[in-house]
């Protein structure tokens, strides 16, 4: 059977000497350990370099003259995949426009509510995530100088407003001081950017089914928190807020209230049918208020001015009307006396009738809007002039007051392709893959080198 084979194996084995491999085995083991440690350190260093050092490298200071060149882009685009975040270095600097919507790149992986930010003077885009649907110009507000963005943050236990500084990438937190508040939302900036009007939502029933709204004015350092008004949530306190240098107008229900900056009410008046406080730019330079009015039975909207104390018609505006929209919102006034408005283009699939009475918040709800445009309503002009266009499903937009007031518009070329973060992540993954491949093949390479070294032509050991 195999007895002969067994014998042959033993005979062959018996003549094999013990190989003197102890020292070389130790050296191989130690070399292997060193290589493993070196590979781990190198991988760690590369990760650190790629993930942290690269975004920090070459961080230029924000150009203080950026504001002087701020201009409104004539079109905006969707942020490319991999667009840098607002907190990334180098900081973006002041912005001209922020926008939100339901385009895939504005919703993220999980309907995160991405806010697009466009630099004040160039087509540099940044983004940041709210975590849920929060329309620009309504809950996410760009400061008058374009440097800050105020957004709701925190949770129902500790609601707050976060103010993102686009010049530094940092964030300032303003925790709500309203007792039992479950949500605090910014609704208006003061002209100098030193104050914010915020609206808190406070449950009044034990089961939390009924709420009231509390409108407050707060300094940006969070030191002074003054209550303006409060009432039933249904009144939508601060649904529209407009600041002037020394006064504040806000709408609740069908009423407009005017207060001083400490919250003392100066006047109030009832709104006419199918009229709303026109928007954050409702104050005119001469101290009147502007209303946006829909002509009954149509989708034609126009602006008209009223006395801030009485609400009575005051002077005639010869601005062109805007037709075929769900609503308009006044952003401000330009040097040529034209009004810059956001026009909400209706969603064709929407079941709502926009030529019929409908609350303003419903008229600008995402589901009822297909896209937005910025229109200039110039005195004496027959038609509105389109200033800025946006892709479909960009559904809300806010513009820095200083950009509006400068009247400057620039030819825009929104970025295409993919953003820096895409390349950073691609590079990081590539480095990790290469590092892992190198780590896994280390033994193979070391032993191949060893074999090459050992099998160089040289006299073999004799027996």
């Amino acid at each position, binding site marked *: *059977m195999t007895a002969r084979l067994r014998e042959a194996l033993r005979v062959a084995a018996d003549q094999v000497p013990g190989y003197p491999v102890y020292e070389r085995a130790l050296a191989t083991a130690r070399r292997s350990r060193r290589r493993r440690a070196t590979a781990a350190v190198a991988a760690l260093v590369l990760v650190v370099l790629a993930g942290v050092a690269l975004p920090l490298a070459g961080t230029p200071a924000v150009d203080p003259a950026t504001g002087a060149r701020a201009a409104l882009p004539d079109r905006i685009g969707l942020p490319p995949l991999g667009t840098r975040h607002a907190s990334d270095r180098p900081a973006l600097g002041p912005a001209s426009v922020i926008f939100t919507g339901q385009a895939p790149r504005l919703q993220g992986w999980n309907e995160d509510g991405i806010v697009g930010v466009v630099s004040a003077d160039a087509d540099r885009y940044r983004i940041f995530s709210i975590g849920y649907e929060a329309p620009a110009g309504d809950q996410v507000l760009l400061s008058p100088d374009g440097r800050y963005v105020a957004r709701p943050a925190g949770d129902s236990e500790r609601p707050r407003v976060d103010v993102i500084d686009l010049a530094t990438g940092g964030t300032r937190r303003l925790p709500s001081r309203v007792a039992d508040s479950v949500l605090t939302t910014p609704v208006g900036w003061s002209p100098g950017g030193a104050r914010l009007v915020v609206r808190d939502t406070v449950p009044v029933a034990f089961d939390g089914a009924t709420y009231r709204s509390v409108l407050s004015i707060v300094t940006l350092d969070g030191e002074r928190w003054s209550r303006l008004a409060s009432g039933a949530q249904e009144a939508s306190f601060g649904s529209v807020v407009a600041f002037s240098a020394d006064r504040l107008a806000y709408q609740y229900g069908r009423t407009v209230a005017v207060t001083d900056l400490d919250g003392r009410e100066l006047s109030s008046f009832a709104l006419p049918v199918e009229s709303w406080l026109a928007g954050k730019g409702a104050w005119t330079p001469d101290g009147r208020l502007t209303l946006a009015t829909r002509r009954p039975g149509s989708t034609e909207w126009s602006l008209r001015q009223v006395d801030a104390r009485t609400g009575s018609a005051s002077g005639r505006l010869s601005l062109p009307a805007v037709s075929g929209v769900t609503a308009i919102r006044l952003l401000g006034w330009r040097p040529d006396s034209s009004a810059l408005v956001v026009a909400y283009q209706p969603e064709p699939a929407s079941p709502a009738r926009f030529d019929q009475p409908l609350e303003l918040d419903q008229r600008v709800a995402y589901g009822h809007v297909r896209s937005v445009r910025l229109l200039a309503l110039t005195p004496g002009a027959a038609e509105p002039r389109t200033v800025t266009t946006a892709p479909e499903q960009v559904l809300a937009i806010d513009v820095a007051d200083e950009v509006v007031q400068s009247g400057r518009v620039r030819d825009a070329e929104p970025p295409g392709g993919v953003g820096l973060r895409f390349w950073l992540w691609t590079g990081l993954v590539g480095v990790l893959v290469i590092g892992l491949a190198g780590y896994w093949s280390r033994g193979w390479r070391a032993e191949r080198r060893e074999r090459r070294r050992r099998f160089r032509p040289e006299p073999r050991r004799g027996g």
Partner: protein
Amino acid sequence: MTETFHEFVVHRTPALSRTAYLLTGDHQLAEDLVQAALARTYRHWRRIRGGDPEAYVRRVMYHQQISWWRRRRVAERLEAEPTDRTGADHTETTALRLTLTAALRQLTPRQRAVIVLRYYEDLTEAQVAEVLGCSVGTVKRHGHDAVRRLRLIAPDLVDGTPERSPR
């Protein structure tokens, strides 16, 4: 720890060397195999010294040999004359050893491993399967193929029908 590992190497290197030579059929390859297996054992010495370090080394050697062959890092070097470290005394014993060495070179590393484990280490097929990390059926197949091949190329080494081994 090093001293203990040193003692282990001093005591067990001769036996490991013999197995390595049977696995590779070449003294230098065998030396490399023992060295690589001991280096790996040293790296894990703290963990395995309380168990059966020799079994660990042998398992590493078997797998390393098969792995080298798979990666083709070690070219099968067919030599006109096998390496002879003991001098050319053409006795019957030497002839048997040379015949075996030449015959083993005609086997795949896995077949060679099965032959060494089965007929030199005297392991059962189940134990061989455990060491090689494969099924008993695979061991049977490799063993059967190896013996059949040896019978063809070196009939003097294998005669009669293959024996049936205990599980």
